[in-house]
C-alpha cells in the first residue's frame, strides 16, 4: 500500500516567496491582463501578507509572484534604499526567497518603489513595481469604485477634465502635486501612483515594464514597454514638473535630480538628491571608486559640493 507521505511533497512551513502557488498564479494572470490593457485596473484577490495593508502589500504581491533565486532586487521608498519600510520589505523578500539585493538601479532585475522612479533610465527587461495607495484616478470626483469602473469603461473623463479646469480657474494653474493623472495608450486614465510630476514623463515610451499594484484596494494596472503615457493637460496650459532642475545636492553636488528639501536651524534650506542609489554611486566615484552611472532622463550635471 502506498503511503501518503511518499506521494506528498516535503512539508514546509512557508512557500517560496511566501505566497502559495495558487495565489501567485492568480496574481500573474492579472498582471498579464494588465499588460494587455495598458492603464486598465484589474481587480485581484490580494491575499493578506505578513505586512500591514497600506505598507506596500500590493507591490509586494507582484514582486513575490515574480521572484526566483538569483534575481537582483532593489527596494526604495521616497527614492531611498535605507528608508525604514523599504528595508523591511527587502528583509521580507530576502527571508522568504533567496534573492540578491542591490541599490544600483542599473543592475536590478526588479525595482519595488514607493513614490519615486529612479533618475537613471531603466532598460528593457527591467521591471518597476510601484506601490499604490489609491489606484483610482477618478476618486476625487467619484468615491464609488463601481461607478468609477463604469466611467473608465465608457472613457467618461469629462469630470476629470473639469476638475483640472477648475483648479486652473481658481488657482491659476493645475494644483495637483504628486500622482498626476495620465492617459495611457490614448484610452485609460491612470494614476501613476504618488510619484512626483518630475517622474511622470519617465513612463512615456519607457523600455521597462511598470506594474502598479494596490494591495488594500485589490487592483493592479500596468504600463508595458513603449507605451504612450501623457499627463492630462490642456493644449494652452503646459505640464509643469517640480521646479527642481536648478537645485544642487548639498552632499553630492548633483544638479538635475529630484530633491529632498531639508529645513535648517538658521531658517535656510538644504537640498539632497532624493535618489540615494544614484547619489551614492556619484559620491563613490568622487571618492576614487568609479561606479557606472547610467543614462538619466533629465540632464544631470555635477558641481562642486
Amino acid at each position: 500500500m502506498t503511503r501518503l507521505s511518499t506521494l506528498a511533497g516535503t512539508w514546509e512551513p512557508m512557500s517560496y516567496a511566501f505566497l502559495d502557488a495558487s495565489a501567485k498564479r492568480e496574481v500573474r494572470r492579472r498582471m498579464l491582463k494588465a499588460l494587455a490593457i495598458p492603464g486598465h485596473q484589474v481587480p485581484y484577490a490580494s491575499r493578506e501578507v505578513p505586512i500591514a495593508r497600506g505598507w506596500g502589500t500590493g507591490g509586494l504581491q507582484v514582486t513575490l509572484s515574480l521572484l526566483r533565486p538569483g534575481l537582483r532586487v532593489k527596494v526604495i521608498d521616497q527614492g531611498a534604499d535605507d528608508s525604514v519600510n523599504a528595508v523591511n520589505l527587502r528583509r521580507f523578500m530576502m527571508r522568504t526567497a533567496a534573492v540578491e539585493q542591490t541599490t544600483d538601479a542599473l543592475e536590478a532585475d526588479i525595482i519595488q518603489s514607493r513614490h519615486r522612479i529612479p533618475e537613471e533610465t531603466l532598460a528593457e527587461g527591467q521591471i518597476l513595481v510601484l506601490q499604490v495607495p489609491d489606484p483610482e484616478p477618478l476618486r476625487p470626483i467619484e468615491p464609488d469604485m463601481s461607478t468609477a469602473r463604469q466611467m473608465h469603461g465608457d472613457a467618461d473623463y469629462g469630470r476629470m477634465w473639469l476638475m483640472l479646469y477648475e483648479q486652473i480657474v481658481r488657482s491659476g494653474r493645475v494644483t495637483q502635486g504628486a500622482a498626476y493623472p495620465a492617459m495611457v495608450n490614448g484610452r485609460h486614465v491612470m494614476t501613476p501612483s504618488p510619484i512626483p510630476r518630475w517622474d511622470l514623463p519617465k513612463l512615456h515610451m519607457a523600455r521597462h515594464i511598470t506594474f502598479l499594484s494596490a494591495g488594500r484596494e485589490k487592483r493592479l494596472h500596468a504600463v508595458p514597454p513603449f507605451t504612450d503615457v501623457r499627463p492630462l493637460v490642456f493644449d494652452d496650459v503646459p505640464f509643469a514638473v517640480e521646479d527642481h532642475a536648478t537645485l544642487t545636492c548639498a552632499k553630492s553636488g548633483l544638479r538635475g535630480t529630484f530633491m529632498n528639501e531639508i529645513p535648517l536651524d538658521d531658517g535656510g534650506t538644504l537640498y539632497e538628491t532624493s535618489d540615494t542609489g544614484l547619489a551614492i554611486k556619484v559620491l563613490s566615484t568622487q571618492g576614487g571608486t568609479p561606479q557606472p552611472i547610467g543614462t538619466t532622463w533629465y540632464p544631470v550635471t555635477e558641481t562642486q559640493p
Partner: protein
Amino acid sequence: MTYVASRGGEAAIEQAERLFRAELGPITPRQVDTIRQTLPWLIDRVMGEASLHDRDLAALALAQTGGELYEAVLLLRAWRTTQPRLAVAEVVHLDQTFAHRRISAAFKDLPGGQILGPTLDYSHRLLATDVLDGQTVTPPAVESADMPGAALLPALTDWQKAQGLIDDPTPASVAPDDIPDLTREPLLFPAARAHRLQSLARGDTGGMLALGYSAQRGYAAAHPTVNELRLAEAEVRVRHPDGTPFSVGRVRLSSCEMVSKTTNPDTKAEYLKLGFTATLGWNEVKVIAGSTLDLNMQTGGARPATNEEFVLSHVEPVEASGFCIHLKLPHYVTFQSALDALRGIRRDGGQVRSADEVMEEAEARTAAARNTMEPAQ
C-alpha cells in the same frame, strides 16, 4: 558603501521591534493557555475578524502582540491565507446548531423558548475591587433547571415562513467548490450575496458597530427588530473521500436575524424583510450590527449604512487599520510635490515647459537611449 547606506534603517527597525517585544517579555505555552482560558470573548472576537476558528492560534496571536487587536487579526489572516483548503464543509442550518443562548425580541415566547444562556445583559456593572485587595472573587454556582433544555431549537423563520410572513426563496443550488470565496476573489459591487455575508463575518466589530449604530439613529431607512439571536456551537461536517459525511469538530458561532416591515415597490404588498449576519466565535454586538447593516443595504440609498460599497469597503479591519497607520510612513516626496505646486501658485507662474516640449523631449530621449548607453551630460 551601498551596504553602509542601508544599515541605518535596518538597525533602527530591528531595535524598535526588539524594544516592543522586550516589554512584552517571553511568550510561554502557559501564558497562551491562560489567555485562551481567561479571555474567551476576546479570543472569539479575534477569531471572527480573522475568519479562522482556532483558539490556540488566536491566543498565541494575542500573546505575541500584547493584545494589539488589529495586529493580532493580521497575524492570523496572514497565517490563514497560506493554508490549503482541504474541504468545503456542509451547510450549517440554524436549527441544527447547539444553542447556548437564543433569544427573540419579536415574540414573548416562541417555539423552543427564550433561552437566556450566558450573558452580562442583566448584570450590575460594578468593578470587583476586592480582587485588588487580595481577595479571590468566586462566582456563585449556577443552579440547574428542573428540566434540561432541548439540544436543538427550531428556527423562528420556519414558523414565519409557514405563516406566509416572510418570503421563502428556493436556495440557489451551488456546488461547494463554486461558492464565491472572498479570500480568493476580489470584492466587486454589487457584491455576490456570499461575498457580502463573508465581508460581514470577517468585519471589524468596532467598524460594524459604528455604521450599524448610525442606521439605528436614523441615518438609514429600516428600524429593525431582533428576530432571532443565537450563540451556538455547530458541527463542521465534511465528506470523507469515500462519500461518508462526518464531523471534524465543533465551532462557536453567533448569528443574528433582524426583521423589518417593508413595502414591495412593485406590488405595494407589505412583507417582512430579513437581514442576517453570522460570524465565528461569540460576538453579539457584531452580528446585531451586521444584520442591521445587511437589512439596510438591501434598501439602498445615499446614507452610509444603506450603501453596500460604503459599508463593505470600510468595515474591513486589516485594510482600515493598515491604511490608517500607514500615515506614519514618510511622505516627503508627495509633500515636496505639493509644496512646489503651492509655491508655484504664489509665484504666479514661473518657468514652465509646455506639454509638447516635455513629450518631444521624452521621445527624443527614448530614441537616443535606444542608440547609445552613454550617460547623458
